[in-house]
């Protein structure tokens, strides 16, 4: 693990961007069910999932949303914390899909040290015009 990266508000500019990508495995989904308590059948029951449109289990939406956090830290450093967020789920993540997160700084408030970041998550093979997986807006506060 690298050392702690502390950013000051002056280190962050509108237009800064960062990426993170991860393949979502069955282990991830089962661990996430354990952590969150969300054992909905379309996440954990393969026989049920085979009866759905996807013919596969799908990842929890908030598991996908969790992949956004590394991008927030890349943009705002380790001394930041999420003050508020709005997330819209547009499409499903199937087991073994690879999710790519892109975050871009759209607003920097020097007075209250809050950074606004717009986020889009896509899956492998995504091309311009395809439906994204997740769209989000995050307010990241620099607390250190």
């Amino acid at each position, binding site marked *: 693990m690298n050392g702690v990266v502390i950013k000051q508000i002056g280190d962050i500019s509108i237009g800064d961007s960062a990426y*993170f990508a991860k393949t979502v495995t069955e282990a991830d989904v089962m661990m996430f069910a*354990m*952590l969150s*308590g969300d*054992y909905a059948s379309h996440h954990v029951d393969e026989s049920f999932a085979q009866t759905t449109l996807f013919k596969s289990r799908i990842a929890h939406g*908030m598991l996908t949303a*969790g992949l956004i956090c*590394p991008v927030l830290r890349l943009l705002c450093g380790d001394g930041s914390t999420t003050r508020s967020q709005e997330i819209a*789920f547009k499409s499903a993540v199937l087991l073994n899909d690879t999710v790519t997160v892109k975050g871009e700084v759209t607003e920097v408030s020097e007075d209250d040290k809050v950074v606004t970041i717009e986020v889009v998550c896509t899956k492998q093979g995504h091309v311009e015009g395809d439906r994204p997986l*997740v769209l989000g807006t995050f307010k990241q506060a620099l607390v250190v």
Partner: protein
Amino acid sequence: MSHHTRTPDIATLKVGDYAIFKKTVSPTDVMIYAGASGDFSPLCMDTTIANHFGHRTNLVHPMLLFSMAGGAIHRLLPEGSRTISRSFEQLQHVYASDTVSIVATIESIDHKKNEITIVIQCFLPDESLALKGLAVESLSVSKENLA
């Protein structure tokens, strides 16, 4: 592990219905979540660093707490419900080994859209509010928005 399968039926739900998911968020939970999400924030992973910045111990990832809303929502809604959107605001930090109670309460039901808006609250043992938010869930079968 699937509990059981129920047919989505918005008629069985009413405003004010609620469910609670209570959990002690262990340091192990925090570590496992870091592995699943890729978020190895030092404030969550390293007690020394957390102490250095004035915290009594490791923080719980806010997104892990937000995720536990799913545990309450799963107990509230019929099987097959899907997340449309979620928004959250964190009011105070939660630390590893804290016990939190996530309460999901139906705020409104849109019968035309087959959508339900749910208020999410996360309480600490002293009954103070650590986070609050809204979740919009759909009971309509749609390949596009299933999450």
